[in-house]
């Protein structure tokens, strides 16, 4: 008891109590506000409108780089005219919002606020689309690999994509820290959107260069090849001679050196 009394009389005790009280009030307030805000917004708008909702999300999460009216700033380009497809690609791959400005923005897990709100990407897309048009998010049928011709798509893929993305879509290096990402994680929608919007270092393959049907063929090839079981055993990353060379030295030569040591270690027993 005396110890508690001593604590209460401690010169710093009053500050500690003050900080605790402030923290308690802050936490309760923040919880209350978070719970009430969507309801407030819905009430204020009368109905949940994608564009309006998208605009508020945009202002909260995107405007610091792209500007309050998506007009662009020194740190981010204008989004007027990029279309819903660009927003959907950038946000669904986790590239936007970007964490730090490097040579290239990497694919990453979605931020919590996007995960919690499944409509967020659609709403921001709708808002950006309303600003100046641009490529739309493709429909389900437009990117369905089952409807495409993989062999025809393969020819287009080899002619247009593999110089950066590699024959197996394993990706590759570009100049000065930029790179072409691997295509294994990309959904059919994302592949389509990347072609029509040309994100980051990628050129645009618009519908007059490669028709939507050809795009679907390419998606069919990409998904078919990446899902294929390697017929020759372990695929070694499918990047060809570099890993093969590593394996022949590390597995082949090492095993045979060990074998030669073992063989010559056996000496005839003197009887």
């Amino acid at each position, binding site marked *: 008891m005396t110890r508690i009394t001593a604590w209460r009389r401690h010169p710093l005790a009053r500050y500690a109590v003050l900080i605790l009280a402030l923290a308690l009030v802050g936490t309760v307030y923040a919880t209350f506000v978070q719970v009430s805000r969507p309801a407030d917004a819905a009430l204020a708008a009368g109905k949940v409108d994608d564009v309006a909702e998208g605009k508020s999300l945009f202002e909260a999460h995107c405007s610091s780089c792209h500007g309050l009216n998506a007009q662009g700033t020194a740190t981010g380009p204008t989004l007027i005219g990029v279309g819903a497809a660009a927003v959907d690609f950038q946000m669904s791959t986790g590239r936007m919002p970007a964490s730090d400005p490097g040579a290239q923005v990497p694919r990453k897990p979605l931020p919590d606020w996007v995960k919690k709100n499944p409509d967020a990407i659609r709403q921001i897309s709708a808002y950006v689309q309303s600003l100046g048009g641009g490529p739309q998010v493709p429909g389900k049928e437009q990117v369905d690999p089952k409807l495409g011709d993989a062999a025809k798509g393969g020819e287009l893929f080899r002619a247009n994509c593999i110089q950066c993305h590699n024959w197996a879509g394993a990706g590759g290096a570009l100049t000065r820290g930029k790179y072409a990402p691997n295509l294994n994680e990309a959904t059919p929608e994302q592949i389509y959107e990347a072609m029509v919007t040309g994100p980051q270092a990628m050129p645009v393959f618009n519908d007059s260069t490669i028709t939507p049907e050809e795009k679907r063929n390419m998606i069919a090839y990409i998904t078919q090849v990446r899902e294929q079981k390697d017929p020759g055993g372990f695929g070694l990353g499918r990047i060809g001679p570099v890993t093969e060379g590593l394996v022949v030295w590390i597995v082949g*030569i090492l095993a*045979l050196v060990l074998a030669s040591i073992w063989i010559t270690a056996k000496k005839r027993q003197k009887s």
Partner: protein
Amino acid sequence: MSDDLNKVPKAIAGTSSVLDERLGGANFLKRNMRKIFPDHWSFLLGEIALYAFIILLLTGTFLTFWFQPGMGHVIYEGSYAPLKGVMMSEAYASALNISFDVRGGLLMRQMHHWAALLFVAGMMVHMLRVFFTGAYRKPREINWIIGILLLTLALAEGLTGYSLPDDLLSGAGLRITQGVAISLPLVGTYISFFLFGGEYPGEDVIARFYSLHILLIPGILLALVTAHMVLMWVQKHTQMPGKGRTNKNVVGAPFYPAFMAKAGAYFLFTLAVVAGLGTFAQINPIWIFGPYTPADISAGSQPDWYMGFLEGSLRLMPAWEINLFGTAQAGTLPLSVIIPALVPLGLVMTGLALYPFLERWITGDHREHHVADRPRNNPHRTSIGMSAIVFYGVLWLLGANDELSAFFHINLNMTTYVGRALIFVGPALAYIITYRICLGLQRSDAAVISHGVESGVIKRLPHGEFIEVHTPPAEDIAAHMRGKEAVPMLPVDEDTSGIPPKGMRGPLGKLRGRMSKAYGGEKIPLDEGHEHGHEDEHAAVGPGEDKSLTH
């Protein structure tokens, strides 16, 4: 009864007499079956290449049954769905056919390719062993040159084989080959048109490479391999220094039965490694690469590993070119292709071929050598070898700089800049470091010889000090170390009137003398280990103590 068992059955005795009376093989066999082979693990490394070559011949023969070396266009109708209906060359279609529709075809293709990679790798580790132990010295210089020829031919054999399936990757390799050919001044265009039968890629090159790959080059390889083996047999194998081993004898196991069993087992090991890799690790998946068209190129295009150093030198080279008389009309000298294609290959191959002769010129050593050097005992040779390895290694590593950049997220340009510095700094550092390590190892040998090895027995001296008692090294270890021989040196010292000896007087002679002095001579004498750093221990024992224990 035991007499019956010991008697050779008539069927065997009769047949062998008939053969012997006509061929006279008994004497030859009697003499050669007892041939002695010295035992050291590193002496088996060359056999990796030999056995890989045998596997290559067998699997390669299998592949020729189905492969069609044609560049005529066909529409693929085989069982690999993502390529169905695609136009491709007959060569590529038949390689796909082997992979998917011939029973065991994919396994054979993969074993052939893995064996090819192992073939060159085996040659290279064998060559390094021969180099670092000085086993190329007289009388084995000719065999060394044959080995260099084998290595060069193996690269050509690999290059032609890599091009045959006519997939996208092999086409990229072919394109670089053509680029190098056409970059040669004056003759480049002629060579390129001659090789491809017209404009690149034409319709001839696959059939031509096929003839080279399955007929000419393997024929020469087989002849040279035979010569290599016969010479080794006749000259006998070198042996590591050791107890009772001299330049006049060979200590080891007889060919029959001991060495034959070991060699046979080693063949089976090699076959197991190749078959295992062929079964479990996919190599050269040509169906993913797709058919070759000159318009397509892929990220991550790489040659097989043994061509990687050439790829790397091409990637490191700054884009230098000279337009003659200031205009491209008068001709262009593309230094950015000629230098990386020819200089590193020339440096490595010529350097290797000339090394035995350069060393003899510098050391003036004309004696025969049958006892191998331990690498530490010729520190300059070992250092030169290590810097060559680093030179090769940097080029090799940088050949994969795009994969390094993509995999480890390094700036691609940075890999090139670092590589450009490393290609000069790396070998120099390797030289210095290796040299110091060699001398350090020699010192440790000297310490063991003159001072003994730690016995684990701690002894307390009367005045309270503790010392560890050292015991003389085991007899075989001591003999191994005492096999050391000073690197020979020319008589370079000037006479009393300051005149250098004959042959060391011109600028070249002076250089030769200086190099001989640096290269040759005894750096760390074996019996002087004593003097360095052990005085305290000895002083503590004192002159009257029992020295046999502490030495």
